[in-house]
């Protein structure tokens, strides 16, 4: 793909980034969701003046604090990795990626140093209303902080609002609002934060169920289940809605990823959505890439077409269409994209030579072309394809995309059922009698974590071979450093994050066993 790239270096760099991101994501979603649950509980306390609600709020705030504190700064390592392991990428996108990450850093700093302190130290020292305001600001701020990270990630999925400057070899932001309101960013932000709300609701439901199983803290458990059940149900419905919205944007921005997560090879109208399926490899190949077929599947007829555009008759392109092209549908073959990308690379080479030979007139002429919108739309957007050796390299791992997507969706529907049952049993007054449900809720605490990580694996693995969709493959983005140093830091991170996780879980379990003290 990229002749000079050392594959083991690329693989280890990817593995290290994946490890860091996966661990980081174990801390983040609980912060996003639990902050809102705590703020809702405190609002009820301030409105009713009922001290039991204060006790409930303070208990969940303690667990929020443990998670928040242990998770702080784990994401900063990802930014270190950009500079060390992904320097070509960092430079290539610096101007665009830098702005959202800087805003996130400033926001997180002010939020963490002020309102979190009021949340924890301010009981009985500031007014009830100011304390409540601080709790809400922490919740809103934490979620806004996530917005900027997700905007940056969405740009990698759908690069917009920039122009490439050959002089600096960087993409420069020309439209901040286009970057911020990038369709993928909107869908990704809403889908991600709502999944965090869901995760936190399941966390509260599960721990409250533990208290009911142990027949202690009954009032706290019931009230917490009421809040988490309703908040969780609304969140899980929002997850479905935003997931559907994300699918629509994905079908436009990343059609190969979309086809891969449905293992759709032949494009068709009235395309069905696979509800459940098992894939098997076949002898057929696209280039060197094996084609998968369904050994078994249950399909909802026409639903995939509806998902993409709301029209049951809509054509959904398959992997064959997207790789080989489909003239009647206006889909370019990857070979053509490789040609266009190569043309851009040749121009870049020519620009470099012109600068070297002090041929400023030619260099300026080429630089002007890079600023031209038509040139960008027709050619530069395929720049990354110039690094591919064959068209099949543009296909992500279909099995990974298919299974991660379907497992995530199945878990999503399971969560809706659990929240519905929790509310139903609670209102009927029979919750404690259904011990199987309490045990199921307790065991389900981990499942939203699994679903969230699957979502990230789908988003990132499904984008392969790209680090920036169509513009840069991962192999061109990596720094030329020694593989040994990447392996060393990989092991260091694995140890560090595991220790942090063990610390969090042990402090959390101890605090849950102690229960609310106030």
């Amino acid at each position, binding site marked *: 793909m990229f002749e000079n790239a050392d594959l083991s270096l690329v693989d280890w760099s990817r593995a290290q980034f994946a490890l860091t991101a996966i661990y980081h994501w174990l801390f983040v979603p609980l912060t996003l969701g639990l902050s809102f649950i705590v703020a809702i509980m405190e609002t009820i306390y301030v409105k009713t003046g009922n001290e039991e609600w204060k006790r409930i709020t303070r208990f969940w705030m303690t667990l929020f604090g443990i998670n928040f*504190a*242990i998770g702080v700064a784990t994401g900063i390592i990802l930014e270190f990795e950009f500079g060390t392991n992904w320097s070509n990428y960092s430079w290539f996108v610096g101007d665009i990626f830098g702005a959202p990450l800087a805003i996130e850093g400033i926001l997180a700093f002010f939020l963490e140093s002020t309102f979190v302190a009021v949340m924890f130290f301010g009981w009985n020292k500031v007014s009830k209303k100011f304390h409540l305001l601080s709790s809400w600001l922490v919740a809103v701020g934490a979620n806004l902080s996530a917005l900027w990270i997700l905007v940056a990630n969405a740009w990698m999925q759908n690069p917009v609002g920039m122009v490439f400057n050959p002089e600096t070899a960087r993409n420069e932001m020309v439209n901040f609002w286009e970057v911020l309101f990038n369709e993928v960013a909107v869908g990704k932000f809403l889908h991600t934060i709502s999944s965090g709300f869901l995760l936190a609701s399941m966390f509260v439901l599960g721990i409250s169920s533990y208290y009911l199983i142990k027949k202690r803290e009954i009032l706290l458990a019931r009230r917490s289940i009421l809040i988490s059940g309703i908040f969780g149900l609304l969140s899980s419905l929002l997850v479905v809605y935003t997931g559907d919205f994300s699918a629509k944007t994905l079908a436009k921005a990343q059609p190969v990823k979309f086809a891969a997560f449905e293992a759709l090879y032949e494009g068709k109208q009235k395309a069905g959505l696979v509800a459940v399926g098992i894939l098997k490899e076949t002898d057929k190949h696209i280039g060197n890439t094996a084609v998968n077929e369904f050994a078994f599947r249950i399909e909802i007829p026409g639903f995939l077409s509806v998902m993409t555009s709301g029209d049951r008759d809509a054509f959904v392109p398959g992997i064959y269409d997207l790789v080989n092209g489909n003239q009647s549908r206006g889909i370019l073959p990857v070979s053509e994209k490789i040609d266009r990308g190569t043309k851009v690379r040749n121009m870049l080479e020519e620009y470099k030579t012109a600068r070297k030979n002090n041929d400023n007139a030619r260099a300026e002429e080429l630089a002007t072309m890079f600023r031209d919108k038509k040139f960008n739309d027709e050619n530069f957007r395929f720049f990354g394809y110039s690094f591919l050796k064959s068209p099949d390299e543009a296909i992500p791992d279909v099995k990974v995309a298919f299974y991660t997507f379907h497992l995530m969706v199945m878990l999503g529907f399971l969560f809706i059922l659990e929240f519905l049952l929790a509310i139903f049993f609670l209102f009927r007054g029979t919750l404690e009698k259904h011990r199987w449900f309490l045990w199921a809720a307790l065991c389900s605490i981990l499942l939203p974590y699994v679903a969230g990580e699957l979502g990230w694996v789908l988003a990132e693995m499904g984008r392969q071979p790209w680090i920036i969709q169509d513009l840069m493959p991962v192999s061109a983005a990596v720094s030329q450093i020694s593989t040994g140093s990447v392996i060393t830091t990989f092991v260091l991170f694995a140890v560090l994050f595991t220790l942090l996780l063990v610390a969090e879980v042990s402090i959390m379990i101890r605090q849950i066993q102690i229960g609310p003290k106030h």
Partner: protein
Amino acid sequence: MNRLISSFARIFRFYYDGFSSMSWWGRRVWAIIIIKLIIIFIVLKIFFFPDFLHRKYKTEEQKSKYVLEQLTKSL
């Protein structure tokens, strides 16, 4: 001026009281935070995560040239 000093004193007192009356879990997570930040910003950043381009090149122009070279070198 006195009001400013008084405000700072109140803020200081707020944090001081908060930290000094922390529960066991608060003390423990603060210990973890401090150890973690030392590891991340001193050990990892300095010894394991230098900025690749910054270490190799002094000027922005040199960095641009290097990346341009990387993006075109297999042609």
